[in-house]
């Protein structure tokens, strides 16, 4: 096998960067079926009902992470909680669609704080979004004191609706994922996002509106989190801790899905495989009877392992089976610095 790929390097099969998480999805799915025999598609439809919310948040987080090193949005969790109250409160009087829009806009408003802090005050994104999340937490607490209510029955029916066993929401979010993919590959904004992530300075020199791109991405991420919060309010119910797990989960899902953590390479499909993997895994662990604590430990270890494997596989950004072999098999050549330096000297 090695010989064939070496002799014909052009014909190597390029392993998609979301492939690993897809393998994970299939593996966990298989284990669930083995543990609890039953309808083969049951675990998957279950995971599909919760995954869309995580995918929504993860798509925004992916865009942010794609902006380059240091870019991360840690405010998504608290925005979800806040938006859940906003959408229910507004939706109660003005109808569910206006409610959802209000939830989204409350997210965008929170994102505006981050954007102002990042672009005008030059506060590092992680601190800016953390500070935003503190402000949003206060807003959530105030809203929780003021408003109590349940989501609109119509919206509730929509988020629970299924077509041929597949949740309607999953289809909608899948369409959105395609839209994000289109945006990233076919539009000026998307190319600007990727270019900024690969080299902010180069993007700036090339005349790309880096500031506008950065602002758009953070506002989009916050807006998607707000939308997810509004939908979650109907799927579960508004709560001050509704979104708290989404901050870490969204980052984990993005990384597991194959998006390059150092920016410049988004993988929209990976948001799905990552979210499904996470959903199936927690379903499996609940099935086996693991405690919340043990689940968290496993989640953490998985994130770390995936990042390490991803770093081993992706040398400079493209991931392929060949690169994995290069990196894993002849380790002394690939891993140690002195050898490569030595080589350079000979060439020079």
């Amino acid at each position, binding site marked *: 096998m090695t010989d064939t790929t070496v002799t014909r390097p052009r014909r190597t099969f390029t392993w998609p960067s979301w492939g690993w998480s897809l393998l994970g999805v299939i593996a966990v799915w298989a284990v669930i079926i083995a543990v609890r025999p039953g309808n083969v598609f049951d675990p998957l439809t279950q995971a599909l009902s919760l995954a869309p919310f995580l995918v929504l948040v993860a798509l925004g987080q992916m865009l942010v992470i794609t902006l380059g090193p240091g870019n991360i949005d840690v405010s998504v969790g608290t925005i979800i909680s806040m938006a859940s109250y906003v959408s229910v409160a507004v939706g109660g009087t003005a109808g569910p669609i206006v409610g959802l829009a209000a939830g989204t806009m409350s997210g965008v408003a929170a994102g505006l704080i981050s954007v102002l802090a990042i672009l005008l005050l030059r506060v590092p994104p992680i*601190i800016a979004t953390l500070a935003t999340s503190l*402000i949003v937490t206060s807003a959530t607490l105030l809203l929780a004191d003021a408003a109590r209510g349940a989501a609109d029955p119509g919206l509730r029916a929509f988020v629970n609706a299924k077509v041929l066993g597949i949740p309607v929401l999953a289809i909608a979010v899948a369409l959105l994922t395609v839209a994000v993919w289109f945006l990233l590959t076919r539009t000026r904004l998307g190319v600007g996002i990727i270019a900024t992530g690969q080299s902010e300075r180069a993007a700036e020199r090339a005349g790309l509106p880096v500031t506008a791109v950065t602002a758009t991405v953070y506002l989009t991420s916050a807006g998607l989190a707000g939308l997810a919060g509004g939908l979650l309010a109907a799927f579960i119910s508004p709560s001050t801790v509704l979104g708290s797990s989404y901050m870490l989960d969204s980052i984990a899902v993005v990384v597991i899905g194959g998006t390059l953590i150092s920016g410049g390479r988004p993988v929209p499909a990976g948001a799905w495989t990552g979210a499904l993997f996470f959903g199936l895994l927690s379903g499996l662990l609940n099935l086996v009877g693991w405690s919340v604590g043990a689940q968290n*430990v496993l989640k953490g270890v998985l994130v770390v392992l995936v990042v390490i494997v991803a*770093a081993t596989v992706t040398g400079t950004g493209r991931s392929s089976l060949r690169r994995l072999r290069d990196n894993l098999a002849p380790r002394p050549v690939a891993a140690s610095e002195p050898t490569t330096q030595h080589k350079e000297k000979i060439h020079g």
Partner: protein
Amino acid sequence: MSITQIALPARGVRVRAAAANGSPALLALGALVVIFILTAMLQPGILSVSGLTLMLMASVPLVLAAQAQMIIMSVGDIDLGVGYLVGLVTVIAATLFIDQPLLGVLMIVGIFVAYAAIAYVVQKRGVPSIIVTLGMSFVWLGIGLQLRPTPGGTTPEWLAAISSWRPTWFPAPLIFIIIATLIGWYITRRTLAGTRMRALGSQAPTLEKAGISLVRVRVSAYLFAALLLTASGLLLASQTWSGDINAASEYTLMTIAAVILGGGNFAGGRALPIGTTLGAVTLGLITVLLSLINIPSSLQSAAQGLIVIAVLAGRILIERFSR
């Protein structure tokens, strides 16, 4: 020492460099003084030894954790697991130290091993530290929840004794804060390991060409950080007399903010222990001040967020204009 004396640049250059390096710390000092005066005006009682003790107590573990974060940030990394790790140490102290002391000690050792492993992975595999420590924060949280799902427990007497020591002539927390700063200062500014850490943060290729193992330097930085974080958790447990995995969850933000406030940067290569302590105490006092001016508890976190943004923005603006 003699080598450094020979290599000293002209006095003018040194003064200018000190001013440039110290100015961010001066901002933290200014903020600290303003907040202290405000607090003293609202509550004159804090100007006594017992008042200062109460006011500064909460800052002691934060200062230790901030020194740890400073060390990590000096090599160019960020530790996002600080909050839950400190919480985990309080859980270990309040649960295992009583029931199974041996297991407790083993878990503390395990934390050190984990930190060494993180450093190894970050250095060898080029994995971003933010993500690895973020992943580890899940692990700390999970272990903490497993050991103690709800806050509680009791700390051993020797541990509780540390924080109940209250001399009448001097506020005890101030002593701890000074000791913590001295430890951070000694590690980063006076030891060879500390110099190498800062070199790793600013000029890693040069350090490697000098024949120094980058892995060893990063591991040593993470081990020092683990030491300070463990001390932070133990002191927090000795103050609260209980274990709670969420006891210090806000430390992750506060320690990073303290380092930046005190003149540190995200790029690495800088370690300013005194500035970091000033930053941490400032942030700790903000909490005290907010509780004194009677704003609703739900608004406190917003005020904290706004103040952090304002102070950081102020620092960044000052830095830009001083150049």
